[in-house]
């Protein structure tokens, strides 16, 4: 039973209050994109054993979507942050670098 802090309402929410939403920071590819880009956007997913950035919704709470940085191997949560950004906050990236030297995820490190 994971517990994550909703960055909007500040509540430590049990997993049963939340809905998971998969990989974070996807760039939408609409009409005009080529087949490979579009396929990657819809289906290719980061599936790291380690640091991962993902989306959650505080579905049975304030209803807001937010992002979490979490380790898929230890389940450690490095932090949660607004969904209204295309890149995790720098201080969070620094925290992760401190705890998991050498990590990388897509073009982040």
């Amino acid at each position, binding site marked *: 039973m994971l517990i994550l802090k909703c960055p909007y309402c500040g509540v430590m929410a049990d997993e049963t209050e939340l809905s*998971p939403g998969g*990989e974070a920071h996807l760039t939408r590819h609409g009409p005009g994109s080529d087949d490979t880009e579009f396929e990657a956007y819809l289906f290719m*997913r980061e599936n790291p054993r380690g640091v991962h950035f993902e989306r959650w919704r505080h579905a049975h709470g304030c209803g807001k979507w937010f992002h979490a940085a979490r380790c*898929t191997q*230890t*389940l450690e949560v490095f932090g949660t942050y607004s969904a209204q950004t295309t890149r995790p906050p720098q201080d969070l990236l620094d925290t992760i670098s401190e705890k998991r030297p050498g990590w990388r995820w897509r073009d982040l490190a």
Partner: protein
Amino acid sequence: MKRYSAFALVREALNGHKGWERAWRNAQPKAHYDAIIIGAGGHGLATAYYLGKNFGITNVAILEKGWLGGGNTGRNTTIIRSNYLQDPSAAIYEKSRALYETLSQELNYNIMFSPRGVMMLAQTEHEVRGYRRTAHANALQGVSTEFISPRRVKELVPIIELNGPRYPVLGALWQDRAGTARHDAVAWGYARACSDMGMDIIQKCEVTGITREGGRVTGVQTTKGDIACDRLGIVVAGHSGVLAEMAGFRLPVESVALQALVSEPIKPCMDVVVMANTVHGYMSQSDKGEMVIGGGADGFNNYTQRGSFHHIEETVRALVETFPMISRLKMLRQWGGIVDMTGDRSPILSKTPIEGVFINCGWGTGGFKAIPGSGWGFAELMAKGTSPLTDPFSLNRFGEGRFIDESVAAGVAH
């Protein structure tokens, strides 16, 4: 290989069981193999077995980072069925089910295939329609199923409650030649047969890199040294993404935890497998007497082989409602496995962008039942470059929008 039989057991009993040899040789890697399979789970071992049996390719190594059969092969609820809706799924699962029927005899290893029948309850009008459609499809696919009445459901499963106040049972899709098998034995039986064909099963050997030359695979790097090969099959379920990355391509796969539990053993009370999709739960009784219960999958990426208790609650709640007599039984043990889910929840059996590298993954929650069929088709794909069983499951279907969507039968409520 010494054959197993009741006679052999008696002979060995008189001899203090000193004569039993190893079920599989303890092999060390050679410099080169015609084919290497990464992953000594059910699917990997079955692939190797059929490479040898059907195509005469026996210079094969199966590399396993832990112990053979130690992944999802030994962590599932052992259900075998083929009552799928879409043609490609029905084909591979039915091939698999048919191979399971004679697998004990073929491998000379009792995998305890028990064709006790599997039923899927219809508890809404929508489900009735979905399962009637499946029954129609199955009739043309050569899969023997029928839609049965609530009365027949009760005859087959006396412990069921037909008239629950929330979701009465309106009927069921019944496949009488589906059933269960002893999961570990499937891996062990294939391993013994592979070893007997001269293949090397190398345990505690982790692949750390995949060597390529001009877009073609030439070998693997492992914790037991470099090994050359002409063809490479990656059959590592939840860890496929990690291996694909080594080979230099991406997969439409995410790994999540799926949970199951068993009760304490009791005397026989349920002779068939029942799946109740509306309330999310399924149950059967093992030969040992435990009620084997399948639970839900988490929706987030996870490599811990554990899951959240709320899924267990949800499943048990559904099953206590469906089978009220289990209320005073006790949960003995719960566990999780890591399953690899694709974009359309159907598996991938495919060539890859790297020549000579083949991938078999994405079985999600359906892997165990597919082991022989998957091995049969994947071996053909590796040997010939094409197989009617696996071609529809290629990687390029996602780009083309040509999905194999089995959630259709469950569908959405109107």
